[in-house]
Structures are given as structure tokens and as C-alpha cells.
């Protein structure tokens, strides 16, 4: 032991921990967004960016305002949302049913899993003409496209989630003589919910992509139809406004699912 009166000499142990733990931050994204828009707007005003190549954000905003004032916005948006919601909900319900079947029964798994593996990678846009022949040029073919696009990722997320439910919890349920239905409803369903909700994130994004693709054929109203028309007319301001709407739609969906996760998965460590 060194003498108490002697000063302690030596170097502190160098710190080498830290890092690898990014934290959420509410400020960075809005600031970055404002900087980007400002640079873009200034570039356009100063003539660095040709309006033929890319319209100024203010022009795109004007196009959006025009759309709003003329009442067309409500028509486009309601048409799109209707297709999106109906297609996504139907696809999700079917996906949940088939996903749970594949997760719980040997026979169903044998039939469903290879089938999903075979059809999931086919771009549903390529099947759109087929759907038009089957279901007509109206709403049905558009909804069918979104439904199919939602169905397959949901099946995969659900049966993956069921597979990952802690076997120990299922064994616990059996050891207390819980019925099959009780185990499925009270142990497997909540246990698979984290995977199912992250599957919803993917399926919702896929359905927005497919919505636009489907609306580019034979639709009078809808964000996809609006964007297509703007592109055909070389109306770049309208095109940018339409694309921005899609982006906002995606953000809203992601926010809703985030809230759902916070609410349903508050038990997660």
C-alpha cells in the first residue's frame, strides 16, 4: 500500500467502452428535412436547377394547393385509401388464417409453405393484366393486386412468429392442462404478435407500392392515376406533389403501426 500522504501517480485507465447504441432523436430528421428543402428551393430560385428537370418545392406545393382547392384531392385520396384499406385488410385476414394454419398444423404447413415460397417472389405487378382479365378493369382487379401483395408477406410473418413462440411457455400451458384453444389464444397469439406487427409494416409498404401500380391502369381517381397523368403531361410540379403524398401516406402508416406496437407490446423488455 502506498503512503497516504504521497500523491498517487500514474495514468488513468483509458476508456474504451461506449458507442454501438444509437438513440432516437426527434430533432435531426426535421432539421435535415428543412435544410434539404431550403437548398432545393434556393437552387431553383437561383436557376441552378432547371424547372424542367425538377420543379421548386414551392411550385409543387402550389400544385398541391390547387388540387386541394379544386376538391380533386378528396376524390383522389378517398379512392386510393378505399382500395388500400379494403385490399390490405382482406389480404391480412387471409394471411393470418393461412399463417396460423401453417404455424400450427403439419398438413397445412406442407401445403402452404412451398406454395408461398413459389408465389411470393413473383412481382404482383406482372400479374396485374391477369387480374384485369379475371376481375375486370374496375376496382376488383386493383383490390386483388393489393390483397395478393399483402397476403404472402403476412403468411410468412405469422408462421415465423408462431414458430418463435417460446416452447417453454407452451409446455407450461400443457402442464397446467390448458385446452388447445386456450394455448393458441392466450400463449401463441400474443407470443407471435411482435413478429406479426413487424410483418404489418412490410405488408403495408408493399400495398402502397402496389396501389400506385394498380391505379396506373384504368383508374379515373387515385394518387397513382394522378401521378401517371402528371407524368404524361410533363407536369413536374404535380408529379412531385403526388409523390410527396405517397411519402406522407407511408409515414402515416408507419406511425399508426408504431403506436400499435407501443400499445400491444408494452410487456416487452
Amino acid at each position, binding site marked *: 500500500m502506498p503512503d497516504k500522504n504521497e500523491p498517487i501517480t500514474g495514468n488513468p485507465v483509458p476508456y474504451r467502452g461506449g458507442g454501438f447504441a444509437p438513440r432516437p432523436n426527434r430533432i435531426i430528421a426535421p432539421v435535415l428535412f428543412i435544410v434539404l428543402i431550403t437548398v432545393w428551393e434556393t437552387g431553383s430560385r437561383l436557376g441552378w436547377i432547371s424547372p424542367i428537370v425538377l420543379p421548386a418545392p414551392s411550385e409543387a406545393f402550389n400544385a398541391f394547393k390547387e388540387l386541394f382547392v379544386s376538391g380533386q384531392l378528396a376524390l383522389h385520396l378517398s379512392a386510393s385509401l378505399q382500395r388500400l384499406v379494403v385490399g390490405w385488410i382482406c389480404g391480412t385476414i387471409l394471411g393470418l388464417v393461412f399463417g396460423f394454419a401453417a404455424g400450427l398444423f403439419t398438413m397445412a404447413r406442407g401445403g402452404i409453405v412451398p406454395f408461398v415460397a413459389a408465389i411470393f417472389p413473383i412481382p404482383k405487378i406482372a400479374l396485374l393484366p391477369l387480374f384485369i382479365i379475371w376481375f375486370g378493369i374496375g376496382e376488383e382487379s386493383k383490390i386483388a393486386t393489393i390483397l395478393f401483395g399483402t397476403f404472402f408477406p403476412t403468411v410468412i410473418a405469422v408462421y415465423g412468429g408462431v414458430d418463435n413462440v417460446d416452447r*417453454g411457455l407452451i*409446455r407450461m400451458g*400443457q*402442464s*397446467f*392442462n390448458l385446452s388447445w384453444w386456450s394455448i393458441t389464444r*392466450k400463449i401463441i397469439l400474443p407470443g407471435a404478435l411482435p413478429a406479426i406487427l413487424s410483418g404489418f409494416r412490410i405488408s403495408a409498404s408493399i400495398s402502397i407500392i402496389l396501389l400506385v401500380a394498380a391505379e396506373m391502369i384504368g383508374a379515373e381517381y387515385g394518387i397513382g392515376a394522378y401521378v401517371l397523368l402528371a407524368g404524361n403531361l410533363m407536369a413536374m410540379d404535380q408529379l412531385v406533389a403526388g409523390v410527396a403524398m405517397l411519402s406522407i401516406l407511408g409515414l402515416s402508416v408507419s406511425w399508426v403501426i408504431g403506436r400499435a406496437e407501443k400499445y400491444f407490446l408494452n410487456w*416487452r423488455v
Partner: protein
Amino acid sequence: MDLHLSQISHAYDDVTVLENIDFHIETGQIVCLIGPSGCGKSTLLRFIGGLELPTSGAVMQIGSPPKDSLNPLTYIFQDFALLPWRSVRGNISLVLEDHGIKGTAAKAIIDDVLLRTKLQDFGDALPKQLSGGMKQRVAIARALAVKPACLLMDEPLSALDSQTRELLMDDLIDLWLKERYTACYVTHNLNEAVRLGHKVVVLSRRPGKIREIVSIDIPLEERKNNPAKLQEYQDYLWNLMRDEARAADQELNHA
């Protein structure tokens, strides 16, 4: 209700895991199962509770369980097996719901078992808010709620730190002194076995056979005051197991 394990043997494919296991669990007694790792202790416990079937032999119930027993053979697991999305009360209610016990009847049972496990203030907590020791107490409360005829405990203290283990050990002893429950207790900790067991079944390494059944003739309430005698028993058990444990440790894993 007594339990009798008669001539149990088990093999996975062509690897024999257990051979001719034969012993008796008497009502009101705690039987400890010890053995080197991989000797099939936990598998044996799963046979006793009917979660798995042995290749040959059977576990017999002698006499019928008390009428008010909702789940005669009830497990307490090493990893607690609590549903993380249910509160403490919800976890206990889970095992009552299937018996149609809801509302005030369920509340009475839950209040009672929470009191017996000293958890009355934590009914609404989620498992993630509890320490390991508390989680295991919740699992014990859940087991008591179904009025088991025999508790099947699979290394219930192994996932806990040593101080918590000490506390929970005392709780298990106190609980036995009050309620005289029947239990089969799997452990690899010889100290736990000599403190809690009326009978210690020593298994050999794979294929697991009964090496010896050691009866500990000191009443549970007197064991605290007899550390020297307990140590003797513990040393005796360790002598039985030492070579087996060493050999088991050096075995290559074929699984």
C-alpha cells in the same frame, strides 16, 4: 396420492438415456433427484408429469388425488415460464380460467396464494418489472393456485443468484412445514438436496440408472440446527457422484 415410477427406460433413437428407474414418491415427502448433467433428470420429471412418454415402463398414480385439486401434477420450471404480457395476477388467473374460475372466486384464490408467497403488493406488476426471485415466487404462487397433489420442480433455484436462492430455499422449507406438500425436486445442487429432501435419488451418468437412494432421517425443521450431520450427508452424496460427474464432464457431446 402416491406416485410410483416403475421400470422406466428411455431411448432417443438408439441412445439409451434412462434405464430401469424405479422409485416411490410418498404423500407429504420431498424426493430429490440428483445426478451429473445430461443424466436425464429433467426428462424423468417430464415423464412424471405426463409431458413426455418413456420408451418403456410407466409412472403410476396410487390412490386418487384430493377432490379439490385442479391440477394434481404441477410443475415449477427453472426459467419460471411466466407469460410476459400478463401481470402477476393475470399469470395466476391463466391457470384458473380453463377451470371456469373467474371473477370473485378467482380473486379469492389469487389473493390467498399471493399472501402465502408474500407477493400481495405486486399483483399488478408485469414480469419484466420483477427480479428473478420474485418471478419464481410468482410461479410458485401459480402452482399453489391449482392445489397440486404433487409439485414437480425442475431446478427451480438454478437461475437465481446465490443470496436469492438462500431466501427462496427457506421459503420452500417454511411452506413445507406449513402445508406438507408432496414434491419431486430435480437439482444438481447437493446442498439443496440435503436441506429439502426426505429421500435423495442419485442417478448415474448416461445411461441414467439409480446409483443409490439415500434417505435423510433428520426432520426438515431440525436441519438448520444440524449442519454437521447435513454436511456428512452432502459429502457422502458427493463421493457417490464425483467420478460420475468427472466422466460426464469429459464426455463428447453427440447431440
